[in-house]
């Protein structure tokens, strides 16, 4: 059975105030999914359900770090517009859209999306929609550092064909 935290959730949650109905952030430091979801959950206590997706830096293939660059005048307005589109399209109580920028290590969170809704299907579809559009439409470029020390080098990650197929589902 679940063990208790030493500190209560209520006091911890109170430290993180979210915007409603859309909390959209670019983070240049650690993305704490548990903390964010606890606060999002507490905020949307009228919702029937909350769906979420956390995308992380995958280890393997000799990857030492991931660097994510963006174009500031477009990125945050683009994410805010996308969050608004999700709110218009699905019957939601609220959404959370957080994205990391900068240099990350394998295992760290890159993106966290959550949706609160009366019904599960709307919450699920909204998270799916946000992830599809964030990955293909937001202005982020990624490169990976592979290899050790002087043998290490940065490699750009190419656009993926199936992201475009995923987007076509929503037309």
């Amino acid at each position, binding site marked *: 059975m679940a063990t208790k935290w030493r500190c209560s959730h209520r006091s911890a949650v109170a430290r993180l105030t979210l915007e409603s109905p859309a909390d959209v952030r670019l983070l240049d430091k650690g993305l704490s999914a548990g903390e964010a979801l606890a606060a999002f959950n507490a905020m949307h206590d009228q919702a029937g359900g909350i769906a979420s997706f956390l995308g992380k830096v995958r280890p393997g293939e000799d990857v030492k770090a991931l660097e994510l*660059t963006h*174009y500031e*005048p*477009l990125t945050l*307005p683009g994410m805010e517009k996308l969050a608004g589109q999700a709110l218009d399209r699905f019957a939601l109580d609220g959404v959370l859209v957080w994205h990391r920028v900068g240099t990350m290590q394998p295992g760290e969170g890159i993106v966290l999306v959550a949706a609160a809704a009366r019904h599960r299907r709307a919450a699920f579809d909204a998270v799916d929609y946000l992830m599809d559009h964030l*990955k*293909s*439409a*937001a*202005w*982020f*470029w*990624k*490169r990976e550092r592979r290899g050790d020390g002087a043998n290490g080098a940065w490699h*750009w*990650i*190419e*656009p*993926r064909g*199936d*992201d475009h197929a995923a987007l076509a589902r929503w037309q």
Partner: protein
Amino acid sequence: MAVRIVFLGPLREAAGTDSLEVSAPLDWDGLLAVAGSVVAEQLRSARVHVACAGEVLADKTALRAEDGDEVALLPPVSGG
């Protein structure tokens, strides 16, 4: 010296610089001329977008950057 051209993602390496300052006004032909041949070739691809003053252009060949504008060259975003 009043239009700033910003190279993003992999275009930064292709250009060998993060940004360039050029004199206003700057149109599509002017951009191709100052961007360098490697970047100019990529710019002609439909996959590279151009933003001017914070707006992505629907038709990049209609670029008309004025004094103080920032022109961003946006290669395709990364998947994965």
